[in-house]
């Protein structure tokens, strides 16, 4: 990937830095996710880290935001995870964002926007021109955010069913 967009001043009183996740960040990512979703998933995040932060880094991006300089120990303000996927259901390769969160106390201060922009830049550097994500209908926070960044309904519709409700032939 290309270098992330330069850090900019924010109301946080410092510079938001977007960088790749490190193993040392993992506990904070687990903690942020648990606080936002109410469900701690350390094994899931360990697996996501192994798959998206250690292999095929030219098309897998696990990025975090902090108020950064080069010193360690800054709290993680948010994260975004995405990868290039191709030919699923006939789709040309596109960038999929499948995890995204911002620390509740630092929302509306540009953290999410910079994470989104960095992911967009990363996909572009991988030769990708379309980004996709999936949002729960009732998740107005994420829906409104992705809309404000310019995302609109795509050409695919997500379908699902309860397996026990299968219509008999």
């Amino acid at each position: 990937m290309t270098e992330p967009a330069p850090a900019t001043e924010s109301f946080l009183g410092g510079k938001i830095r977007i960088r790749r996740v490190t193993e040392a960040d993992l506990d904070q990512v687990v903690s942020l996710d648990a606080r936002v979703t109410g469900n701690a998933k350390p094994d899931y995040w360990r697996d996501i880290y192994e798959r998206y932060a250690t292999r095929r880094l030219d098309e897998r991006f696990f990025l975090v935001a902090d108020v950064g300089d080069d010193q360690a120990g800054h709290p993680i303000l948010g994260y975004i995870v995405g990868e290039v996927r191709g030919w699923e259901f006939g789709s040309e390769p596109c960038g999929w964002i499948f995890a995204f969160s911002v620390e509740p106390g630092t929302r509306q201060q540009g953290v999410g926007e910079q994470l989104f922009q960095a992911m967009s830049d990363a996909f572009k550097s991988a030769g990708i021109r379309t980004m996709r994500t999936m949002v729960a209908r009732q998740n107005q926070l994420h829906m409104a955010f992705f809309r404000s960044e310019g995302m609109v309904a795509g050409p695919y519709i997500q379908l699902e069913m309860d397996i026990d409700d299968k219509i008999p032939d």
Partner: protein
Amino acid sequence: MQKSSRLAIYALVELAATPDRQVSVSEIGEKYRVSAHHLAKVMHTLGRAGLVRSTRGVGGGYSFSGNAKRTTLLDVISLFEDTSDDCQLADPSAATSVEWVLFDVMCEIDDIAKATFGAITISTMLKQTERRRQPVGDEAAQD
């Protein structure tokens, strides 16, 4: 979406684009090719909801007084239409299975529409409007 809701959204986006400017009803009506009479009623409703404020006298007009980042299209539509429970079966106790299945389909569509309208703010509309400037409509309106 009813005509009043559409006019309200046009007017709010128009006013929010230049929050310091007073815009007259006739100016907005001319731009969107609608009667000033109908628009005046819409503006009155928006005023009662605190989304616009009016100033009387020379140079007066309407200005945006809401929160563009917090006001969604669903908020605006709800001022003019009943969005609380759009999906209703007329007589559930007598409904047939076909009516129930069609009802489920209509509810599915309603849910998606509400989720979409509820996620798009006036601020997002402004951003999208900038990206999609129309050489004919937008330029003619500035003349």
